């Protein structure tokens, strides 16, 4: 160590430099991780906002927690090929797996207390690609941005009635959804509901042409409106019993998948804004639900119906929701998988 002690000044300088590099590196890391910005909207904060006052139901989805699995097929009629090169649009039959659900964080919610019904779906193409989606029955989403969704969760969780008023003033788009919630008829069956993707995606056709689209699953079953009170009388878990019963007696249930193509200038970044009725619609196939299984041991339990799992030929648009949903659903999945012991399988299926 001949040089040690020979250059005390440059040595101090070097030590300071080393400390600065380490401190700077660690600080930059902490900043990137959000540890220094408690105001950042993280997946954790969204998950916390979704939790009911008594805390989340461990082992269950953090939203749309009540649900039942189905399996079936997607029958593509070939019409979608014109819009997207995704293999699932080529005429043919593809395995489908999904989940009917209620938009609540409570897996034991009474059916008649939950306005929003949903459907998670995964379609597998022959080449190993998957298309996942999660759709709901209102024709528009409640808010324009993920941040506004967080604010809605906070406002609606407050006891103070002023909180919602203030929220609506800041987010007037909410009224379209609120009107639907107040006036749209209820039904007594998952089979009678339409399910809308709401978010906009980009389809790319074989020639490279791009089309902004939204899609819906429209029921082929006869729709019989009923009142909220009537539904309540049928029991807390009527919907799950009914869909299992209906398929057992009447056979498979069907939905037509309808793709709506945007005109230039239609709002793609905001799922709270409906597109005009006159937009071009293309029926691309039929979802056939053939079999119902309880969630606890069912095949939908372990699937995250992340709307950004897309086959080639479909990609996200400037709509900010799919990315936000993907990050929050992943977190929800991480948590519920880690809590599987709190929602034990009955042991008939794999461990």
């Amino acid at each position, binding site marked *: 160590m001949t*040089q040690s002690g020979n250059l005390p000044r440059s040595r101090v300088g070097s030590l300071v430099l080393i400390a600065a*590099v*380490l401190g700077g*590196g660690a600080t930059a*890391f902490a900043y990137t*991780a959000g540890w220094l910005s408690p105001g950042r909207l993280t997946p954790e904060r969204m998950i916390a906002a979704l939790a009911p006052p008594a805390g989340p139901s461990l082992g269950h989805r953090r939203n749309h927690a009540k649900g039942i699995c189905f399996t079936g097929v997607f029958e593509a009629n070939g019409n979608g090929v014109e819009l997207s090169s995704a293999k699932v649009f080529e005429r043919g039959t593809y395995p489908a797996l999904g989940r009917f659900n209620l938009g609540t964080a409570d897996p034991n919610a009474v059916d008649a207390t939950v306005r929003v019904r949903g459907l998670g779906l995964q379609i597998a193409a022959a080449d190993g690609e998957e298309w996942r989606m999660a759709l709901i029955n209102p024709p528009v989403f409640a808010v324009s941005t993920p941040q506004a969704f967080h604010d809605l969760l906070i406002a609606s969780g407050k006891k103070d009635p002023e909180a919602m008023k203030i929220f609506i003033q800041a987010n007037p788009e909410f009224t379209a959804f609120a009107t639907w919630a107040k006036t749209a008829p209820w039904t007594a069956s998952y089979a009678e509901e339409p399910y809308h993707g709401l978010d906009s995606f980009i389809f790319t056709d074989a020639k490279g042409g791009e089309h902004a689209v939204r899609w819906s699953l429209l029921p082929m079953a006869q729709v019989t409106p009923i009142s909220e009170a009537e539904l309540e009388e049928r029991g807390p878990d009527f919907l799950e019993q009914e869909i299992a019963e209906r398929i057992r007696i009447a056979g498979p249930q069907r939905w037509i998948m309808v793709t709506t193509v945007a005109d230039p200038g239609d709002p793609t970044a905001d799922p709270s804004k409906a597109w005009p009725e006159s937009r071009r619609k293309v029926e691309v196939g039929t979802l056939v639900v053939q079999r119902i299984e309880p969630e606890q041991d069912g095949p939908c339990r*372990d699937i995250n119906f992340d709307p950004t799992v897309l086959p080639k030929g479909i990609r996200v648009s400037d709509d900010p929701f799919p990315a936000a949903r993907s990050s929050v659903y992943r977190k929800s999945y991480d948590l519920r998988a*880690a809590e599987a012991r709190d929602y034990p399988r009955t042991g008939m299926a794999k*461990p």
Partner: protein
Amino acid sequence: MRDAPHRFAAIQRLLHWLMAACIIAMLFIGVGMVSTVMPDYLPLIRIHETLGVALLVLVVIRLALRLHYGAPPLPADLPPGIKLGARLSHLALYGFMVVMPLLGLGMLWAAAYPVVLYGGIHIPAFLPQSDRGHTLLWNAHVYLGLAFFALVLLHLAAALFHALIRRDGVFRSIALFPLHDKTTPAE
């Protein structure tokens, strides 16, 4: 003064710096993407997966080169405790480089997510869905990721210590370009 035997082979030095930059990017992208709900989340996670798999390929090549070429000896005057620390920390760094991408892939497989990289490269699953498996791999990826960053910082501190304070040729042995040491080597 020719010091060729005191340096890593050019290809080793190149890989070292290429991977160093990518690993630091991976660590920052990792903690950044899991703390955002913004649209950037999607490209970030796609980059994280693609770059992570590329790094797995690179570390295999790097280990093969390391076995083939070996490494220049550490300075003779380095205390034995520090030498041991250096060897163990380098071993740990290689361990992280191999294990982190495998954990990342494993955790996606165990969650039944398809792994699709940039370029449409689809990596088939080698593990079935499993709650317990996913939880284990996920925790390992998160906590080892943080430990990896801590070790990278320590490695950086040691490198700067060699380069600026000891000036003992250790930094020069891995530097991308030949450096002129202003002081005479400690011998």
